[in-house]
């Protein structure tokens, strides 16, 4: 911030609250769901990342279809055999194609889907900051101004300031 420009308390408080909220959301997003404990939870964790082949808008975890049920059984067997969720997922995508994955892989063209939201958020933040700067710029000292921020006219002496305030008040009353 340039000197002479003062951020109003409300704006600072709002910015603080937004920052804390964004931080909390980012933490949750980065940590993801807690590590599943029971076998059921572990199967669910894998199944919820796979698309059900017969009812395309549900995950394998949520679909009641027979094929999804069989896929859950397969996942449980493979987990018991010591395969990692990543290996199981790549096994399914070898059979069904990457289509079966509900989240696109983080490489190649699919990376766009992961990065675009970040760019959008960064762009929105930038635009927000620019807008706030423009709005608050109206309250700073400029070459042609018809209002004077008395508190920020620091070069005045206390006596000058009192005189100025009185003059301004008188002018305001006169105009009413």
């Amino acid at each position: 911030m340039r000197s002479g420009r003062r951020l109003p308390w409300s704006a600072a408080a709002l910015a603080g609250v937004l920052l804390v909220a964004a931080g909390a959301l980012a933490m949750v997003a980065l940590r993801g769901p807690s590590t599943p404990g029971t076998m059921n939870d572990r199967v669910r964790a894998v199944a919820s990342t796979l698309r059900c082949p017969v009812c395309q808008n549900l995950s394998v975890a949520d679909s009641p279809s027979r094929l999804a049920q069989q896929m859950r059984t397969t996942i449980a067997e493979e987990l018991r055999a010591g395969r990692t969720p990543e290996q199981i997922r790549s096994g399914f995508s070898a059979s069904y194609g990457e289509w079966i994955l509900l989240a696109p892989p983080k490489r190649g063209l699919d990376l766009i889907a992961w990065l675009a939201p970040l760019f959008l958020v960064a762009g929105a933040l930038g635009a927000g900051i620019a807008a706030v700067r423009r709005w608050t710029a109206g309250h700073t000292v400029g070459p042609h101004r018809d209002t004077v921020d008395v508190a920020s006219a620091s070069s005045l002496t206390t006596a000058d300031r009192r005189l100025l305030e009185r003059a301004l008040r008188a002018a305001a009353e006169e105009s009413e």
Partner: protein
Amino acid sequence: MQRHPSTLEPTRPRRRNRWVLVGGLLGGIALLTMLLAFGLSRDPTVIKSPLLGKPAPEFSLRTLDGSRTVQLSQFRGQVVVINFWASWCIDCRVEHPALTAAWDRYRDQGVVLLGIPFGDRAADSRTYLAELGGAWPQLVDPGERTAIAYGVYGVPETFVIGPDGLVAYKRVGGVVYGDLIDQIERLLPGQQA
């Protein structure tokens, strides 16, 4: 945006910034619209099988009559047609004559046709076969494991595997006789040589 006349002067460079911003936004929107148009113009139900050109997943399954176990690898060097079907599936009934005709035409040339009922009760499968005929081996796929390995969405689905053990063709939906014949013929000459 309404501005006080006195603030007009120092905002000249900002004007240009605003055009850059507006241009960027419009460009972005145009790009997204084009992406959407491209996405909408494609048929989402057509999904190319990743198995094409890859080794066919191996399986070892009991026949429906329980008489023997059939393993895919025992047919290496032959053209293998695998047909996933179900007794409750209308398209399977429609395609059945095509499969029967292909079987009759190629069974003596070393072409193997295997049927795998999918999401079906064994008793229903047997009734269906008794009704419609078909002497090619029918295999029981417990837990639909083989179907999942082949990436089957529903029935009917048909795979043609070349003598090299690679998946050469996949058909989602009922097979068309001429189409199936073409696929088999395409793979046969190498086998005879």
